């Protein structure tokens, strides 16, 4: 689904950038990029979403070489993606529901279906009651959930979550929601974080990064398969403790 082939990117600052990155993320996988600030986690996500282009190497998304694509073709590719990032905030002149509907509007969904799907996404995010509020009236955590709802509402095949600057002590339901989304329709999810979360990432592939390079890759082993999602559901319902 996503492949980097000897990708290098030199930023304007000398202390950031990517150096000769090669990786492959299969369809339906949860990939975590972790590392300290400036390690290049967000750059990987930005290269995937086409926000920046590599100086060297090639980036393949869904089998397509994005380095050869123009803006118009990339726009079509973006319709397959959901992006959660602090740099893509909610529009403050719209309510939470309108913000979520917007991501369906751009895909040309009929208005009725768009509203129904947006409501469903908000319900899954646990903020359906806040649908009539404006983003300025929400807390940071609620805004994050609204951004996730906006990203997952169109059921994208690729989900990019840039949590590099997020608080690591934030509630775990945010990550759980993404994992649940991924398992629901087999989307590929890429998450950039400063450290590996404590819970709910069994089976995820983790890429440890430092100074623009991948220093280590590992797969978090899955636990017993007897009740695969019961732990998550317990957590979602607020009855369980994180493992």
């Amino acid at each position, binding site marked *: 689904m996503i492949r980097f082939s000897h990708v290098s990117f030199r930023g304007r600052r000398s202390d950031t950038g990517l150096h000769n990155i090669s990786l492959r993320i299969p369809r339906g996988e949860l990939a975590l990029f972790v590392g300290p600030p400036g390690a290049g986690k967000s750059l990987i996500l930005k290269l995937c979403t086409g926000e*920046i282009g590599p100086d060297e190497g090639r980036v393949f998304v869904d089998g397509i070489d994005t380095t050869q694509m123009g803006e118009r073709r990339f726009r*079509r590719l973006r319709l397959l993606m959901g992006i959660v990032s602090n*740099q*893509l905030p909610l529009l403050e*002149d719209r309510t939470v529901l309108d913000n979520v509907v*917007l991501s369906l*509007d*751009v895909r040309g969904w009929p208005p009725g279906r768009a509203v129904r799907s947006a409501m469903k996404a908000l319900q899954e995010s646990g903020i359906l009651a806040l649908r009539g509020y404006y983003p300025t009236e929400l807390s940071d955590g609620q805004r994050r959930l609204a951004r996730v709802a906006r990203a997952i509402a169109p059921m994208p095949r690729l989900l990019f979550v840039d949590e590099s600057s997020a608080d690591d002590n934030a509630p775990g339901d945010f990550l759980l929601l993404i994992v649940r989304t991924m398992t629901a329709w087999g989307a590929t999810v890429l998450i950039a974080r400063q450290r590996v979360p404590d819970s709910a990432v069994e089976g995820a592939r983790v890429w440890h990064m430092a100074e623009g390079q991948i220093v280590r890759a590992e797969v978090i082993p899955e636990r017993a398969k007897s009740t695969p999602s019961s732990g998550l559901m317990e957590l979602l319902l607020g009855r369980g403790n994180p493992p």
Partner: protein
Amino acid sequence: MRGSRQWLRAISEAYRLGTQDPGRHLLTILIIAFAYIGVLLFVVLWHNMTMQMDGMIDSLSLKVVVRRGMAGIVALGESLRRLPGVREATFVLRNEDLAGLGGVHGGDDGSVFHVAPLEYFSVKTHAIHPESLAAVASRAHSLRGVEDVLFPERLAAETTNLVWWMRMGWASIGTLVFLLVFLVLCLRTRIEVLEQRQTIQVMRALGASSFFMIAPGVMLGGIRGFLASVAACLGGHAAMAGVASRIGDCVFLSRQQMFLCMLFGTIICSAIPLVAWWRVSRERSPVPRQLRALHTWKR
């Protein structure tokens, strides 16, 4: 089906944007209307002033006095009309003109003239400088049957000087007005860019098409421009009515010209969101260029 849905969505979005902050939109309409009134008044006053100046220059005619008892007046008239720079030559025979030509007077009390009335041609030229008027006069003087050529040399010089200064003055005012309007439009565009930057970048990241991003803004801009143009035309008409009541005959825009002005204002104001979208769409990074520059400078 999908196309009409996109148009409907653009209209509803434009309505949403327009009703979101009516006070701000009203202020924008007023600013554009005032700028437009400035331009319209300048253009109309320039037109009226040019007409007045043409009338002043037009009154500077040569008097080509014909030798008394001369035969072949018609042929002389033809020769005068063929001279380069001559626009019109009219044969005049009037008693009252005697007073202005060489101090010969009489006839006020109904008495018989002491001398026969002068016969002369009133020659109007294309000349707008005293030198060119003098050149036409010397050419007319060389024609057979012409006794004298009279023209108000001093008045011509003063008139042409006055006209030149008036034109310079109006050109300066016009430049200032146009610069001011250009500045207003640039500032409005800049505000539009800053307002729409985040929206456009978020929409672009979500995969929105260009039409999706710019159509509501262009529609709203067009409506604002149309309302501002109507206000400017009505305001300009009222202002010109005030001017006309003071200086007499004054021409404002015809109905057709007003329609063209409204169309022009609508098009210009619709173009502002297009410029904003074009500028934002050239930015690859969501971080505004100014912030990036600041960041580099700090380092």
